[in-house]
């Protein structure tokens, strides 16, 4: 049966047909849909683990228990899971264990573009790379067989363009009948890695990977496509697809097994072509090994080492290397877009519960009496009231104008810890960290405990939107919903904070600016670690729609309307006597608000209505009201 599947869907279906019984993951683009699809199979146990290290080790436990287990994560997730990953390489498995690791060349949704193929070589773990969804489906069964046969975890490495691109898959497998797991075998010499038992494991791993290299010379999914023998190209993954299109006449060695490389196969291929090229995304991983085999080969000399590849970049490289003629100009050349088009960066959605905190942090940047920051603060040395260290999630988007509210985003968990480090360095500013509910549970808790233990004065803001929003609304331990969307025990973040010794724990509403500002100011001013939990549901996830608000066009731009204007510091009257709108509502960065003809307007089908109302709170003229009807 032919189906159009994304790489992630194909991997999940392949794993299901390979008899996987336990699947674990922490959400991360572009890997998330693997576990989401596994969770739809009734006869698979699937969980969102608290982080990638936990996911890795839960899957290893299941494999040692004798069943087939799948663990999936994004590339940087493997940094978190690396300890378990190396441990798994050391002890091996019983049931098959496959790690799917999805890299993100081009950083579509990531903080770096590390090439995780190095991890396979680093840990002596065999690695397979699909070049489309068909291969992704087909190689899962083989990956599990290899894992069990060679007593090793197996890594399947994809990239965004494999994980998310959809292509046609001939689905030819089906789910096998599965019995209960075999009885547990007690073998301390294999699983208890005290030095005495660990030492003999290392030579075993080296010998194992040599044997796998031999096996890979015969691996059925590696393929030689003979064309013109003047040019032979070794490639893998999506890079193969680009190269195939740029060099339709050349000979190809398409590799699925990219670690260990099938050296005899490579030598056979190399011997029969005049010029040997490697086309690969990111690092010269294949190229360096082929060079170390003593073969004359080119690669990164003409294919970029950074960014995502495409047929365009491969073609440009080929022209530069003299392998292809210069592209014909004039008639065939594309027309470039006009310069200076308005950018459209990703934004906090209308009704987003993070906007209020972002606005308050932005307003407080130059002190409680300061004005809102404009255009970012890169390179500025002027002392601010605070330094805001952020974590990774939707709220990281508060870096963009007009909010410009954060100063750092490094990796999961590095909000609380950086703030503590800055404070201990003695910086003059107050330190505030922001992170989400899912991130708090992923990697925030050890940092918080560290703060308590080491007497920090820093303030931690947990933006609790009751979901893992950025990756597409997955459950986590704080949501009370499991990966299969069943009810689950709910971890209370406030109780966790109190439990580890934070005395000043506050819970505020995400849509009450006054309460947010007062709480943050009080917490920052006190001399102990404090936690502010800002609660408000993700409007996208909860599909919140109310009667949209509208701007009363007569009041907008007509000076203060009444004596009832609150005296709070954040209200500004920059155009007190002007008939133009004061633009205060634009400072919250809501995509539902536009400004035309000197007045603000609200786009009705974008506004979620009264449950947000941040614009109402910042308007000094009480011009924003409920639309009639």
């Amino acid at each position, binding site marked *: 049966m*032919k189906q*159009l599947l994304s790489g992630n869907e194909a991997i999940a279906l392949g794993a299901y047909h390979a008899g996987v019984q336990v699947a674990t993951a922490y959400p991360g683009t572009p890997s998330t849909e693997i576990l989401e699809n596994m969770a739809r199979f009734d006869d698979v146990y699937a969980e969102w683990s608290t982080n990638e290290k936990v996911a890795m080790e839960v899957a290893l436990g299941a494999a040692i228990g004798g069943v087939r287990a799948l663990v999936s994560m994004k590339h940087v997730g493997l940094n978190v899971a690396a300890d378990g990953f190396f441990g798994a390489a050391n002890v091996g498995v019983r049931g098959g264990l496959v790690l799917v690791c999805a890299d993100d060349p081009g950083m*579509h*949704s990531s903080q770096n573009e590390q090439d995780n193929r190095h991890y396979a070589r680093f840990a002596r773990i065999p690695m397979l790379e699909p070049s*489309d969804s068909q291969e992704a489906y087909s190689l899962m069964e083989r990956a599990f067989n290899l894992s069990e046969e060679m007593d090793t975890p197996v890594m399947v490495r994809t990239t965004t*363009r494999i994980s*998310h*691109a*959809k*292509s*046609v898959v001939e689905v030819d497998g089906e789910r096998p009948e599965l019995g209960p797991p075999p009885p547990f075998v007690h073998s301390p010499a294999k699983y208890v890695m005290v030095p005495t038992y660990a030492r003999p494991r290392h030579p075993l791993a080296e010998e194992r990977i040599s044997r796998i290299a031999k096996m890979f010379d015969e691996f059925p999914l590696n393929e030689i496509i003979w064309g013109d023998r003047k040019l032979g190209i070794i490639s893998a993954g*999506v890079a193969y*697809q*680009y190269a*195939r*299109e740029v060099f339709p006449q050349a000979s190809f060695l398409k590799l699925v097994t990219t670690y260990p490389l099938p050296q005899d196969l490579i030598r056979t291929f190399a011997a029969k072509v005049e010029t040997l090229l490697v086309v690969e995304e990111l690092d010269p991983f294949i190229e360096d090994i082929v060079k170390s085999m003593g073969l004359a080969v080119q690669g990164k000399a003409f294919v970029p080492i950074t960014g995502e590849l*495409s*047929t*365009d970049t491969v*073609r440009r490289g080929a022209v530069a290397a003299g392998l292809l003629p210069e592209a014909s100009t004039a*008639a*065939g*050349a*594309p*027309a*470039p*877009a*006009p310069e*200076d*088009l*308005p*950018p*459209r*960066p*990703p*934004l906090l*959605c*209308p009704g987003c519960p993070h906007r209020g905190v972002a606005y308050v942090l932005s307003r407080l940047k130059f002190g409680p009496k300061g004005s809102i920051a404009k255009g970012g603060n890169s390179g500025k040395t002027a002392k601010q009231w605070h330094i805001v260290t952020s974590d990774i999630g*939707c709220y990281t*988007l508060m870096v963009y*104008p*007009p909010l410009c509210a954060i100063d750092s985003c490094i990796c999961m968990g590095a909000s609380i810890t950086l703030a503590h480090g800055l404070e201990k360095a003695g910086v003059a500013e107050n330190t505030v960290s922001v992170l989400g509910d899912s991130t708090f549970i992923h990697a925030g808790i050890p940092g918080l405990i560290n703060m308590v233990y080491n007497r920090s004065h820093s303030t931690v803001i947990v933006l609790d939107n009751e979901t893992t*929003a*950025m990756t597409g609304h997955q459950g986590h331990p704080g949501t009370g919903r499991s990966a299969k969307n069943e009810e689950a025990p709910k971890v209370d973040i406030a109780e966790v904070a109190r439990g580890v010794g934070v005395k000043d724990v506050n819970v505020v509403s995400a849509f009450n600016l006054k309460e947010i500002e007062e709480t943050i100011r009080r917490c920052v001013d006190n001399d102990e670690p404090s936690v502010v939990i800002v609660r408000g549901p993700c409007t*996208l996830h909860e599909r919140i729609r109310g009667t949209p608000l509208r701007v009363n066009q007569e009041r907008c731009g007509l000076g203060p309307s009444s004596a009832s204007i609150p005296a709070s510091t954040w209200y500004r009257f920059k155009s007190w006597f002007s008939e133009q709108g004061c633009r205060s509502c*634009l400072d919250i*960065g809501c*995509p539902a*608000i*536009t*400004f035309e003809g000197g007045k603000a307007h609200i786009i009705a*089908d974008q506004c979620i209505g009264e449950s947000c109302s941040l614009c109402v709170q910042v308007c000094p003229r009480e011009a924003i009201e409920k639309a009639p009807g």
Partner: protein
Amino acid sequence: MHTETDILMTGVGGQGVIMASDILSSVAITAGYDVKKTDSLGMAQRGGSVTSHVRIGDKVFSPLIAVGSADFLLSYERLEAVRSMAMLKRGGVAIVDCAAVPPLSVTVSGYHYPSIDEVRQSLRTIARTVYMLPATEMASELGNPRVSSVLCLGFLSVFLDLPEPQWLDGIQRHLPPRLHEVNLAAFNAGVEAAREGRKEEGE
């Protein structure tokens, strides 16, 4: 249909670009073609630029369309049409929903948002034909502005030689039953608009 057809679809997160490209891909696959499709979402849930590449042919390798080689540019928003125009092949066809969705950079930072005529002029430097379609307006008249995504698919379908029953089936498979009627009406409205438009352009 030509053996190789590349369609670039663009718009703003939340407009239904991805759903539309899913429908198109499934129609092409049931018509017996090889298909690859890939989306560029960035980090946007809502409000960011979205691009979807759909490649149809006897055998497709790269999931990404090469610069300057899209046969069709179908954009659900006019600024995004201009942003992606370098992808269009010289002599290709551009179909653009006139709808304005100005980004915050226009509202807050004072960038110029292109008028319908400016968009048309820019695209004409490369496209054989530019269709500026009031798709969102037409969809609103049908009772739901969101069906503009299927309406535009109907428009595009007139240029592609894919069988009509597959289109109807594809739309029904990707949408909940309560939305079938209005979307099928939208598809037909798009087909009709395209037939008229082509006549006017003398195509």
